[in-house]
């Protein structure tokens, strides 16, 4: 499973402060530590209250790619921010994200194809987040069809069925698992699936436990990628063990260590 490290996000205090003071070392340290912990890609988000999202995003991308060559997920709802970041991004890029809304898709998917970037596509549109798996799958079909028409290689497309916090939208956890299974049947080969794992426990108690169990459930349903905290060692070990039990990797006594090599 592709681990996309979530920590470089302006909503975290340390990142917010580092952005304010333009302290590159803090960001670069977070990037390195996430990769060492097993992240194969890094999400980059300027945070919700940035005064200059375009400038900050460019700065973040530039300093992160000094210390690591892993793919970078440019996490912003603002097309200008995404475009600006793609201009300076030397690593492989993942656009995070588009929705299934026509105008957004028509802007971002051709851009991804042009820049040879991957893209995360949320199964929601102008009507909002769908209430069940079938409606999410319908939007996924819309996304896959349009991406195919634009010539996007299917391996660059990640469908995100949007997990919601289990304390406010409890049935959604099950619907998302069902959607992951359905997306696998959409085409041959099918698009990949991704979730923003920490959303499932937003505002709850025992966040790490909820994240850990949900990740395993999602992996069993066929999840390909997750935006998550790779420095949560229990979470990483659960993921590695789940993959082992699904026969994705060959067992050896040091199976936990082997993953990070």
């Amino acid at each position: 499973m592709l681990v996309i490290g979530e920590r470089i996000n302006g909503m975290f205090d340390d990142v917010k402060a580092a952005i304010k003071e333009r302290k590159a070392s803090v960001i670069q340290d977070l990037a390195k530590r996430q990769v060492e912990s097993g992240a194969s890609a890094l999400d980059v988000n300027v945070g919700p209250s940035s005064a200059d999202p375009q400038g900050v995003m460019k700065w973040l991308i530039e300093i992160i790619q000094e210390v690591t060559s892993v793919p970078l997920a440019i996490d912003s709802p603002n097309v200008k921010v995404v475009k600006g970041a793609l201009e300076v991004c030397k690593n492989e890029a993942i656009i995070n994200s588009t929705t299934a809304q026509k105008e957004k898709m028509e802007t971002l998917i051709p851009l991804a194809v042009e820049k040879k970037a991957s893209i995360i596509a949320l199964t929601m549109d102008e009507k909002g987040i769908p209430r069940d798996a079938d409606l999410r799958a319908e939007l996924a079909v819309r996304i896959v069809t349009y991406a195919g028409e634009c010539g996007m290689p299917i391996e660059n497309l990640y469908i995100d069925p949007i997990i919601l916090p289990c304390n406010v939208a409890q049935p959604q956890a099950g619907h998302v698992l069902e959607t992951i299974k359905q997306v696998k049947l959409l085409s041959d080969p099918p698009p990949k699936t991704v979730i923003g794992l920490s959303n499932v426990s937003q505002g709850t108690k025992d966040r790490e436990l909820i994240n850990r169990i949900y990740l395993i459930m999602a992996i069993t349903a066929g999840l390909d990628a997750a935006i998550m905290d790779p420095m949560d060692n229990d979470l990483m070990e659960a993921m590695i063990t789940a993959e082992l039990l699904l026969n994705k990797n060959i067992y050896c006594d040091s199976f936990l260590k082997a993953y990070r090599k």
Partner: protein
Amino acid sequence: MALTLVKEKWTNKINIVKIGATKEEGGTRTSTVTVGGETTLPFLFDEGDIPNPPVIAMEVLDIAPTDWPETLLENFKDVANDPVKWAEKCVSKYNAKLIALRLQSTHPESGDASSEEAANTVKSILKAIGVPLILLGSGNHEKDNIVLAKCSEAAKGEKCLIGNAVEKNYKTLTVSCLADGHNIVAESPIDINIAKQVNILIHDMGLPLDRIVLYPTTGALGYGMEYAYSIMERSKLAALVGDKMLSMPIIAFIGQEVWRVKESKSPDPAWGDERERGVLWETTTAISMLHAGADILIMRHPKAVKSVQETIDELMKK
């Protein structure tokens, strides 16, 4: 109706391992051997690249063999008592690209030769021939730890392949390979989980992954060959989908396994001409191991070596 074949696209490749170092590289070899680098299953050229063909190493013992059948020994009768001459003959007469020197004389029950004597043999052979060397212990772990350390030192800089390291006895040899710049043979007993574990243990000590060659144990035809085959196939598949701890080239010890079975030795005429039988047994086992993914084959009989080399040349034609 034309049939469209489904082609696999693998995401990872087998490591490239180099054996032998020329003068420019700090050694004294006049030729080197490079194995590995495949991005697909054996000989499937339509699905990927196979930049380096499998290589045959001819086995030389540092003591006259006591249990080789006449049909095998007759090829080396004139040199069996002199490993230097034996190695020279393999290179000059049989065109060997790689020599596997087994330090059998150091085994406590085969003469218990000292590590100094073994190191001197290694030095003499390195002086006499220009092809790279595989150095093999006698199989007695305690003695091998001393002997191989000394021989590794004697061959420092020549980038040999030295073996074998096993799960319960790998540290001493890994230290030597690290210190003296050699590659290591990592052995496991027909167990893919242990194979992966041994590689991790060796790598944890600092030896780069591209200096490890995998030996999953070889069985002769009729004596477990297919077990080795399935381990090798699983290992290659795991490597091609991204398992870096199994992405090593594979070595098969053909000669030692084939020539101890009765089918290779028995003079019983009902089993066919014994002069051909052993050769065919070794050839068939070797070719099967090629299809399973062997990158290095250690072989004995010159006729079998010739047949298998011709087969490799033919298989490598795209």
